[in-house]
């Protein structure tokens, strides 16, 4: 009896946290999404979301998030694999993780400097004879910087998965005649799939709602769902529409988590 009471007592801060910072805001967003620009109750925002403007926006948002996730994965997997083979792997991992502790805006401003007309990147292009060109405010620079920012979050779960892989399983695959590639595709990759899924989740979902980068690096050429929400709240003051997009963003997130859900096997 006492025990149960105590246990419930421990739960209180957690419950308060969840209610105040998770459930209440979601309910609030849901409430606002049913208000039109004049504060009247209506479904107009939802109708608007299904017009071509917003559907295109969603699609392009998905496309960029997909690109960012894919490139991060392609860079992160081999990196994580090499890391597990190095002697001081945890030191190297730390070095890769450290940049993620630096504020996102600071990094964005740094890249403005690097990619600017007279920045280091253009100097380099000049030097190798390609000549300087417009780098900032292109979707290339947007994807590049986003990948740079997200890579540690992709590497970490993959590194953990690879690191906890029993090395005799690789010997066993070799022993049964598997080449390096077959060993990778039939044993190593399937057994680290959970790490890959986690990595994709923690990159894809935030990438859908990136907004500062779209302005600073992509010069508003790329508009993601995140940018749209920001614009509605801060520029057009249409909180209802902003909330509606947020509702869809939340739904999409749940859907993605559902789809990339873990299976128990091989964990």
């Amino acid at each position, binding site marked *: 009896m006492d025990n149960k009471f105590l246990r419930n007592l421990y739960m209180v801060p957690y419950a308060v946290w969840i209610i105040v910072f998770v459930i209440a805001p979601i309910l609030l967003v849901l409430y606002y999404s049913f208000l039109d620009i004049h504060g009247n109750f209506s479904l107009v925002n939802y109708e608007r979301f299904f017009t071509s403007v917003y559907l295109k926006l969603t699609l392009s948002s998905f496309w960029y998030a997909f690109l960012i996730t894919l490139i991060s994965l392609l860079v992160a997997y081999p990196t994580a694999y090499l890391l597990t083979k190095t002697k001081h792997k945890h030191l190297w991992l730390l070095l890769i993780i450290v940049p993620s502790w630096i504020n996102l805006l600071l990094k964005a401003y740094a890249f403005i400097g690097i990619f600017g007309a007279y920045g280091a990147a253009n100097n380099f292009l000049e030097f190798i004879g390609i000549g300087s060109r417009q780098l900032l405010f292109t979707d290339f620079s947007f994807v590049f910087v986003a990948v740079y920012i997200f890579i540690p979050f992709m590497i970490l779960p993959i590194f953990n998965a690879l690191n906890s892989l029993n090395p005799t399983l690789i010997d066993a695959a*070799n022993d049964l005649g598997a080449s390096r590639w077959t060993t990778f595709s039939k044993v190593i990759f399937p057994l680290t799939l959970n790490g890959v899924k986690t990595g994709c989740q923690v990159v894809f979902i935030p990438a859908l709602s990136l907004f500062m980068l779209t302005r600073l690096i992509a010069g508003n050429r790329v508009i993601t769902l995140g940018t749209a929400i920001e614009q509605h709240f801060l520029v057009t003051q249409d909180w209802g529409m902003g909330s509606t997009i947020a509702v869809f963003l939340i739904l999409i997130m749940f859907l993605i988590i559902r789809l990339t859900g873990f299976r128990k*096997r091989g964990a």
Partner: protein
Amino acid sequence: MENASIIQFVNVTKTFADDTIVLDNVSFEIERGKFYTLLGPSGCGKTTILRLIAGFIEPTSGEVYFDGKKINHLPANKRQVNTVFQDYALFPHLNVFENVAFGLRIKREKKSVIEAKVKEALSFVNLSGYENREISEMSGGQRQRVAIARAIVNEPKVILLDEPLSALDLKLRTQMQYELRELQRRLGITFIFVTHDQEEALAMSDEIFVINKGKIQQSGTPIDIYDEPINRFVADFIGESNIVKGKMIEDYLVEFAGKRFTCVDGGITPNEPVEIVIRPEDLEITKKGAGKLEVTVHSKLFRGVHYEMTCRDVEGNDWLVHTTRKVDVGDMIGLDFEPEAIHVMRFDESEEDFDRRMEQYTEEEANG
């Protein structure tokens, strides 16, 4: 050319990065279709020998031959050898069927062939009907059998088994020892089995390699090794034994415990100091004065089938005796034994010299 030997190690040395010598100039030969056991204490290099044969590591110096060809640098996936790993190393993301089928799928066998072979392999290890089980749903003993099925299904020329029974309880272990031995006879494949359990080695093998500190101390049939250990390490490691210091007086006459005894060993320089081995079960208890040795019973332990007693002779040597007779601590008794029960070991005798001497003197004995 189909000669008897399938694997050969010639002066193989293996050192790891920190320069510790794990295998020291090891040479041996493995013949087709036999059951071999590598026996030795933990860390003596057993797994290292298997890994060299399987191709996971390369020797630092020396040569490894397979079927007459040097295979020092042949990668593991090109060798006709399959391994049952110390920790089984079954693929956790595949079910029993797919684990066993792994090697066949890599060889791109036809679907029907794979199905038939996997089925047969599973029935070999008494696991028919378990095809769709997940590995996590199998017991330790069942996993071990899946690991064996996964190896035999590829029909390799040699199967390497690294302490596959060490995780099992005594009963299952004994049962699996029979099953493995039986399986090897049915398949006719060479088995190289690793264990640090001497009883297991004696029960299962055609041939045993006793290894210590990266060196093969002695190789031979279980009976040879048990009856004629080359040195103190082997005598001590294989079974329980009484080892006392003695002196060789002349061929077939040895002195220990203050007396002279006839024995069957010869070829040793007269008056050379030697060590004597007598197995506990070869010592017979007699009435005081009726045996060859006079001893006092020091302690007694009930071991289920027999009593294990330690006795002490007048020179202070301890004698371990197995008996079913009732004797009390403090009793004076006699110990009797046959000349054949005495085994004489020289200090630092090489295996070649030992074998030569054994051959010569057993022949002489048989002839005359």
